[in-house]
């Protein structure tokens, strides 16, 4: 086994997901299957290989720090599940 139910439950918590018992069972099997498959990569010696994160290494795309038009609060709040005044409302945190 590459991954067990307990680990999947922990990963789900990190990802802010709750799985039902049935989902947990199924996902554990499927994830185990997928993770066993990707072990295939261990066949390759990559010690000296530089990792590619982006095909073209565009780095530091700077721009002038100038004031531009932005979304008016009313439009930004148009899709808000819950709002109060000019703000997004969420359940109590503290």
């Amino acid at each position, binding site marked *: 086994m590459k991954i067990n139910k307990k680990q999947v439950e922990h*990963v789900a918590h*990190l990802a802010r*997901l709750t*799985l039902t018992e049935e989902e947990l069972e199924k996902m554990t099997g499927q994830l185990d299957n997928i993770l066993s*498959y990707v072990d*295939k990569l261990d066949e390759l010696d990559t010690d000296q290989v530089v990792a590619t994160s982006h*095909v073209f290494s565009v780095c530091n795309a700077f721009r002038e720090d100038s004031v531009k038009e932005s979304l008016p609060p009313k439009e930004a709040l148009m*899709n*808000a599940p819950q709002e109060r005044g000019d703000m997004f409302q969420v359940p*109590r945190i503290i």
Partner: protein
Amino acid sequence: MEPYELTITEACEQMQEGNLSAMDLTRSCLARIAGVEKDVQAFITIDRDGALQQAEVADKKRKEGFAGRLCGIPLSLKDLLATKGLKTTCGSKILENYVPPYDATVVSKIRNEGAVILGKATMDEFAMGSTSETCAFKIPQNPWKKGYVAGGSSGGSAAGVASYECFASLGSDTGGSIRQPASLCGIVGMKPTYGRVSRYGLTAFASSLDQIGPLCRTVVDCALLMNIISGYDPMDSTSVKQVVPDYTSSLVDGLAGLRLGVPREYFTAGLDGDVEKIVRNSIEVLKERGAEVVEVTLPHTEYCVAVYYLIAPSEACSNLARYDGVHYGYRDMAAETLLEMYKGTRSKGFGSEVKRRILIGTYALSSGYYDAYYKKASQVRTLILNDFKSAFELCDVIISPVTPTPAWRMGENTDDPLSVYLSDILTLSANLAGVPGISVPGGFTQNGLPVGVQIQGRHFQEDQLLRVGFNLERGLQLGKRALDI
């Protein structure tokens, strides 16, 4: 012949000559949608009133002499491209009622050219899938055979174009999501070079792999759309500052001097007999048109699926962290604490394929596993990129199948995600290497299902792909066939 059957180029000519109006084309497409949509299921949202209004404006502009290059042409858009004022769901319950306050760059570009946006196309939830069956609302069907998948994730885009509900569509391709449904539905689909087209307003799935591209019925239409959507955009820092050529000028008869690479690894066991025959025949056709055929090798092909299904979910789990019920989209209103709200919102809002990929990605990036999974995959990605670099020293373009098999029955393999992932093996590498790829119809199986041919090229050489595609289209002369709708 109905107006909806025209190509974009033909429709533009007809409008220019005054034989047809934007209103005629739009009404024709809307009537076609009314007739076949119950079978095709290509749209999540149909914007009938909006389309008619846009057509009216297009006709007015043409009269005033300001017709853009897509003036009056009815198109669909994959439902993950932001459209101001028009619902954009990404095929997910979590965004069921989301109305973007802005347009994606590609959407602004086609609007500026006068296109009529008919609606938003069905797709796999957040573009995660190969059959569009993970869509939370509707599942498109293959217009060539009822009960067969249209492919994915841009399945609604492909099915809609193939069934003449719209003239063309814009989709997105993270691991084959334009080329594969185009192949399975018998149309043309292009994934441009990474950075060729701005991703601003495209809902992010895997940011280092995602690219927007056209799905069309002809290579000429594809070139025309590429002319419009390509180019640097300050809103996407990964879009590349490179001159955009006139892609239509590369569409010339004959392939003298072109070296056509045939990768050994793409013609292995598991390849359907009909598919192989169609691709081999296409190679012969291109040879007759002057191409020189050379064998090339892409030795790390067998590792593509493993690399992709670590990198894409890793990027996805990070991108999808934003769906937390705070700013937009669905929120679990029953939750009392913030943590409960996050978990309730995401657990009820996401479907199982999305959850699966979030879990894989979170695991692969979690402490202790990062080196073994994400870093290792990124290193093998370099080897895959190097494979392409070496191959392109020996050839100008690479020809291959798009998928190992033609379209399959809906509902197959839904409990075995890995077997579906493996069907993506021939398209993933283009995204990992950032090279452009196109799928062009190559023929039909004995069963009557279309099969596409994939052509991949060097970075920013979309013109070569279009040239080869154009010659294939001309050489094959497949003609029109009856659909099963």
